[in-house]
């Protein structure tokens, strides 16, 4: 059963990209660790952590694409799941600091100490264990996604209404996490991490490991997602996207279909967040900004909505561009970015990958027709001869 699921998942492009990701996962750390800084092939740590960040973004975009590209649910709140995953990981990293904080309090994180909290809030328990934090990084976003989706899809909220309430959701969370009384460090968020699983979080080794982890996680999710969308269930999803009522009248429970996709997607976003935080070294409520969620939508659209590789390409391109522009023309990079979005929507409505695929298919169609004609011509020959 599972095997067939996986086998179906592995079409040519996916195989290529997955392979590529795995190669990067091995190669980049190797080049970073084993070559001398002056070696031509050396990849500086700066690039490693930068690209590592991109990869987590790519995973987030992929998660969004599952619901938006294949099920037509435009979520403007996906950064919320990302951030929740991040917070779960952040809490673990905070607990790891232990007595090494400024006040040397073995139990309480610094921000609690100097706002003189007396004991650890209940929801911080268990986060000193990695497995628990990792579990929460997936479960909490998943649960939120499930509950939210269960309400929304059951009462058939869709279109912009759904988009806007997802935005309301992330905005509410933003405000909530800003409140210092929440016990998540308010605006300063969680930071000053020391180590993860006992490894110094700043050592090149750890960075490379995190990079590899991100690449592999992305590859894995790519395979899973591709499996999902290529299964019969995936076809139903696309059916829901294109003709929701038809799927209903064929007897499918559209709300369940949506709910499953939404929850899975939320969990993937959570994983992305959990990998993101140790690499950037901070998580704060800013991650809940509705603007962030919109950016994710934009990466996906730029890369190509409804394709699996598109969101990955889009996320990496847009963020790469951002990194370069903010340094190259700090005063004017917003013009470049804004321009990019306008241009893409106007001239590449299907996104980069989508357009590429379209071109390829056109050519294939054309070739088919040509062959058919040729065949007919040959068939015609002998009669002509007589």
């Amino acid at each position, binding site marked *: 059963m599972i095997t067939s699921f996986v086998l179906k998942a592995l079409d040519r492009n996916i195989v290529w990209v997955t392979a590529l990701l795995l190669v990067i996962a091995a190669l980049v750390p190797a080049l970073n660790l084993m070559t001398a800084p002056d070696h031509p092939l050396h990849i500086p740590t700066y690039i490693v952590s930068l690209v590592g960040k991109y990869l987590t973004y790519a995973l987030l975009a992929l998660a969004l694409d599952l619901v938006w590209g294949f099920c037509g649910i435009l979520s403007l709140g996906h950064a919320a799941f990302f951030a929740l995953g991040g917070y779960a990981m952040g809490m673990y990293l905070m607990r790891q600091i232990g007595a090494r904080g400024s006040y040397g309090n073995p139990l309480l994180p610094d921000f609690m100490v100097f706002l003189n909290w007396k004991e650890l809030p209940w929801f911080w328990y268990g986060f000193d264990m990695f497995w628990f934090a990792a579990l929460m990084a997936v479960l909490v976003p998943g649960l939120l996604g499930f509950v939210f989706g269960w309400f929304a899809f059951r009462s058939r909220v869709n279109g912009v209404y759904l988009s806007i309430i997802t935005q309301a959701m992330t905005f509410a969370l933003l405000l909530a996490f800003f409140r210092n009384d929440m016990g998540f460090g308010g605006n300063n968020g969680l930071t000053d991490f020391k180590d993860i699983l006992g490894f110094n979080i700043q050592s090149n080794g750890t960075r490379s490991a995190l990079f590899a982890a991100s690449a592999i996680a992305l590859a894995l999710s790519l395979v899973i997602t591709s499996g999902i969308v290529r*299964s*019969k269930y995936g076809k139903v999803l696309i059916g829901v996207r294109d*003709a929701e009522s038809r799927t209903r009248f064929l*007897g499918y429970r559209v709300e369940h279909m949506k709910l499953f996709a939404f929850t899975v997607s939320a969990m993937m976003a959570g994983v992305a967040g959990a990998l993101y935080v140790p690499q950037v070294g901070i998580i704060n409520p800013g991650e809940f900004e509705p603007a962030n969620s919109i950016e994710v939508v934009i990466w996906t659209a730029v890369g190509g909505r409804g394709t699996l590789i598109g969101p990955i390409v889009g996320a990496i391109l847009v963020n790469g561009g951002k990194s370069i522009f903010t340094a190259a023309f700090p005063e004017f990079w917003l013009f470049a970015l804004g321009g990019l979005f306008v241009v893409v929507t106007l001239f590449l409505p299907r996104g980069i990958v989508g357009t590429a695929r379209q071109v390829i298919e056109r050519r294939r169609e054309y070739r088919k027709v040509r062959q058919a004609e040729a065949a007919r011509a040959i068939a015609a020959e002998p009669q002509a001869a007589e």
Partner: protein
Amino acid sequence: MNTLASNAKPTSILYLDGVSVSFDGFKALNSLSFVIEPGELRAIIGPNGAGKTTMMDIITGKTRPDSGEVFFKGTVDLTQKDEAEIAQLGIGRKFQKPTVFESHTVWDNLELALNRKRGVFSTLFYRLTAEDKERIEEILSTVRLTNRKDDYAANLSHGQKQWLEIGMLLAQEPELLLVDEPVAGMTDAETTETALLLKEIAKTRSVVVVEHDMGFIRDLGVKVTCLAEGSVLAEGSIDFVSADPKVIENYLGR
């Protein structure tokens, strides 16, 4: 009439009694009542806004009636169920405008329509069995789309889409089929073909056809119900109905 209907209730496949519904004050259905017997092929005619589509919406659970009873096989209360449940009970519906999954191939369209387990996980790990293949092939030939099976539904002609949709209904193996204007925009050839197809289908299950095309109705040659302003105007053979002055004044007249 209600009393008359109610003793038909247990034996009927579909039973509507005094069904009314209104949108923002406009009465779409006004205590509509009629009965479909098992294995019956019934044509329903009526001017625009007579409530034909609304009636289908109510039978298929898309719209809830304000009042009245809707029963399937005399026992199942349809007003308490939603689209999916009703579809799974075995009521298939074909829309006025052909709605198929345009970004799927003809084959996939039928595969999705097949009457199999429809849960999330059973679809997630579904594998195409030999019998399912067979069944799909069979339907393909019934709706004459075998040679297009690998094309995207989007690339089909209008008529072919209509047929594909009918094919999907067959795959669904319903006991009751609701067909909304199947020949709209079809060539005469296609129309007669469709008539044959529907009669073929009606041999094994009950069918309700909503249609404007009187010629087509004649081809079918079955009992006709004429709706107007959300309630039944007349019922009987095509000639009987089309002779009815009310009908003429209300419908054929123009």
